[in-house]
C-alpha cells in the first residue's frame, strides 16, 4: 500500500533533518500552533495538509523564521535543524534562510532578468568570487529546476515574461541557487494549470535526491503524489504524521479520515 519507491530509499537516508519539539506559535492572542512535535527527514518530501487556517503554512514559516517579519507573531518551543535550535539567539535569520529556501504560492520572480533572479541570492551571500562562477551557479540552478533548456537563450529577458509554470520553476531555481539544505514550498502549484503542476511535481520528486523538501498543499492528491511523509494539521494541532501511504489508506485519527475523505473542510 505504501509508495513502492520507498523501500528503495529507506535503506539510504532516514536521518532527521528538522525536528520540532513542543512548538507553539501565537499571533497576538491567537494560539495558531499548539504543541507540535514532528521529525522531518532528510532527502524526503514531507507534505503538510489540512483545512484552511489549520496552521500548516504558519508552521512551515516557522522553519525558516519567516514569521519573524510579522510583529505580533511569537514562537515558543524548539525547532532543531541538524540538532541546533534555529530560534537560538546566535542564529541569524538571514543566514538560516540561505540554508532553508522557500518557494511561495504565487510565482513571484523579481521584476528583473532571469539571470538576475537566480544570481541574486548567491550575490548577496557572496557565494561566487567572479562572473564565471556566478554563471555556473545560475546554469546549475536552472538545470536543477528543469528550466535551463527553455530559457538558456534568453537569460537577460525579464523573469516576469515567462509562463506561470516557468515562473514557479524560476523561483525554485532562485531558491536552490543559494545551496540550501531544506526547501519549503507553500502551495507551489495552486496557481498553475495541471500540466505546469505535473512538471512542478516531477521536479519536486527529483529535488528530494538532494534536499529535504517540505510542501504545504491544499490538494490531497498532490500530497499523495509527491510526498513520502504526510502531516495532517487541524485547528493548530498536528493530528497525525505518518507515511503518506498509510495516511491515505488507513489513517488512525478519525479527524484525518474525515478530512481526506472530504467530510470536513
Amino acid at each position, binding site marked *: 500500500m505504501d509508495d513502492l519507491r520507498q523501500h528503495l530509499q529507506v535503506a539510504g537516508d532516514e536521518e532527521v533533518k528538522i525536528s520540532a519539539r513542543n512548538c507553539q506559535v501565537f499571533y497576538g492572542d491567537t494560539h495558531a500552533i499548539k504543541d507540535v512535535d514532528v521529525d522531518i527527514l532528510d532527502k524526503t518530501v514531507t507534505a503538510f495538509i489540512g483545512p484552511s487556517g489549520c496552521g500548516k503554512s504558519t508552521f512551515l514559516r516557522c522553519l*525558516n523564521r*519567516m514569521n519573524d*517579519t510579522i*510583529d505580533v507573531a511569537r514562537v515558543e518551543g524548539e525547532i532543531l535543524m541538524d540538532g541546533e535550535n534555529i530560534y537560538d539567539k546566535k542564529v541569524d535569520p*538571514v*543566514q*538560516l*534562510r*540561505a540554508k532553508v*529556501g*522557500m*518557494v*511561495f504560492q*504565487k510565482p*513571484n*520572480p*523579481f*521584476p528583473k532578468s532571469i539571470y538576475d533572479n537566480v544570481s*541574486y*541570492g548567491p550575490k*548577496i*551571500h557572496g557565494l561566487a568570487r567572479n562572473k564565471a562562477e556566478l554563471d555556473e551557479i545560475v546554469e546549475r540552478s536552472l538545470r536543477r529546476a528543469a528550466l535551463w533548456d527553455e530559457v538558456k537563450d534568453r537569460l537577460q529577458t*525579464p523573469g*516576469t515574461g515567462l509562463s506561470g509554470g516557468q515562473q514557479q520553476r524560476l*523561483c525554485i531555481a*532562485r*531558491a536552490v*541557487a*543559494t545551496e540550501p539544505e531544506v526547501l519549503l514550498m507553500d502551495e507551489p502549484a495552486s496557481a498553475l494549470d495541471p500540466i505546469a503542476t505535473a512538471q512542478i511535481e516531477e521536479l519536486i520528486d527529483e529535488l528530494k535526491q538532494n534536499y529535504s523538501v517540505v510542501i504545504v498543499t491544499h490538494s490531497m492528491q498532490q500530497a499523495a503524489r509527491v510526498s513520502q511523509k504526510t502531516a495532517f494539521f487541524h485547528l493548530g494541532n498536528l493530528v497525525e504524521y505518518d507515511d503518506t501511504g498509510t495516511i491515505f489508506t488507513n489513517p488512525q485519527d478519525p479527524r484525518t479520515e474525515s478530512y481526506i475523505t472530504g467530510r470536513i473542510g
Partner: protein
Amino acid sequence: MTDITPSDARPTSRGTATEAVRRSLARRNRKQLVLQGFGIAAIILAISMLLILLTSIISTGYHAFTQTHIQLEVYVDPEEIPAEGLPRGGFDDVLAAAMGAHFPAVDLTDRAATRELTSILSNGAQFILRDKVVADPSLIGQTVTLKVPVSDAYDQLNKGLVQRDTAEQFRRVDDAAIARFDRLDELGLISTPLNTALITNADSRFPELAGLKGALIGSFWALLTCFLISFPLGIGAAIYLEEFAPKNRFSDFIEININNLAAVPSVVFGLLALAVFIGWFGLPRSAPFVGGLTLALMTMPTIIIATRAALKSVPPSIREAALGVGASKHQVVFQHVLPLAMPGILTGTIIGLAQALGETAPLLLIGMNAFITSAPGSPFDSATALPTQIFIWADSPERGFVSRTSAAILVLLTFLIMMNALAIFLRNRFERKW
C-alpha cells in the same frame, strides 16, 4: 449513480418572480439614467467652466506675446555721446533726433513738442541704445538701425485695444498722436514681432519692457531648493515609517500628524517660515532659497504620503521572495521595494512640486513679491516667483499689465501641464512590471 435532484420549483412562483424582477428593473434603469444624467451634466459644467477660464485668459493674454516695435535710423552723434563719457550721454536726444527726421515740422528745440514726439518710444528705448553703444563704442559717429519697443499706449493702439472711434478725451492717445503713429506705420517702420522680452527681460515699471525672467529664475531656484530638501527627507521619512518603524501609538501619532500637515493652509507655512527662517535664522528676505525652504515644508507631507502609498503598493510577494532567499531587511527595501515604488514616488513628488510651483501665499509672506528689475544671480538674491509675479502684475495700474498678467498665467499653466504630463508619462512607463 445518477444524481437526480427532485424539481420543486413551481412554475407559478417562478412566473411571478420574473414579473417582479421586470417591474423593479424599470425602476432601477430609471435610477441609473438619472444618475448618468447628473454625471454628464456635472462634466459638461466643469468642462465649460474650464473653457471659459481658458478663453478669457488666452483672449486677454495672447496680446502680450507680441510687442509693437518701431525701427529707427539713429545717428549716434559724438557731440551728444562722447566716447569718454560712457555710459552717460544724451541718448534721449539722439533718439529724438532720429524721430524728428520723420517729422520735419516738429521743432526739436521745443521740449514739450519733443516729449510728445518721443512718447511713442518706450522709456527703455534709450537704455537699449545705451547698452548697445556701451557694448560697442565704435558705433559712435555712425548710424545705427535700431528696433525699439513702442510705449504701452501706442502698443495698445496698434493692437486695436484703443478704439479710434472713442471720443478723444476718453482716449489715452490724442488725434495728433494717432496721426503721427499712422504716418510711421505708412513708412513701414512699425512691426509687431514675437515678444521675446516676456521671457528674456526681468520685471519693469513699463509693461512693454516687463518680462518674466526674474520670476522664472526665482521659481527655478525655489523649486530646486524645495526638491533637494523635501525629496530626500520625505522619502527617508516615508521609508522609515513604512518599513522600519515599530507599529505603536507613537508612530500612529506621527502618521496622523503628517496627514494633517498636508492639509494645513499654505499661508500658515509662510508665517512659520517668516518667524523661523527669517526671524530666527536671519536668512535674507525675498530670497528663492527661503522660498524653497518654505515650499519644502509644504511639499514634504505630500511626498511622504505619496511615497508611503507607493511602498505599500509593492506586492508583499516581492518582499517575501527577497526575504526567502536571505536578503536582509535593508536589502529588501533598497534593492527591491524602493526601485519598484520609484515611479509612484516620482509621480507624487512631481505633483507636489507642481503644487509648490503654483503656491503664492507663503511666498508673499516671506517677501518674494518684491519689485526687482534684474534676474537673481543666486538663490540668495532677492527675486520673485511666477505666481507672485502674476500677483504683482495683476495689481499694477498700467493697461499693458492686464494682458501680461494673463500671459504670465499661461506660462505658469504651461509649466504645470508639462510637469503633470511628465508625472503621467512616468506612471505609465513604469507601471506594474511585476
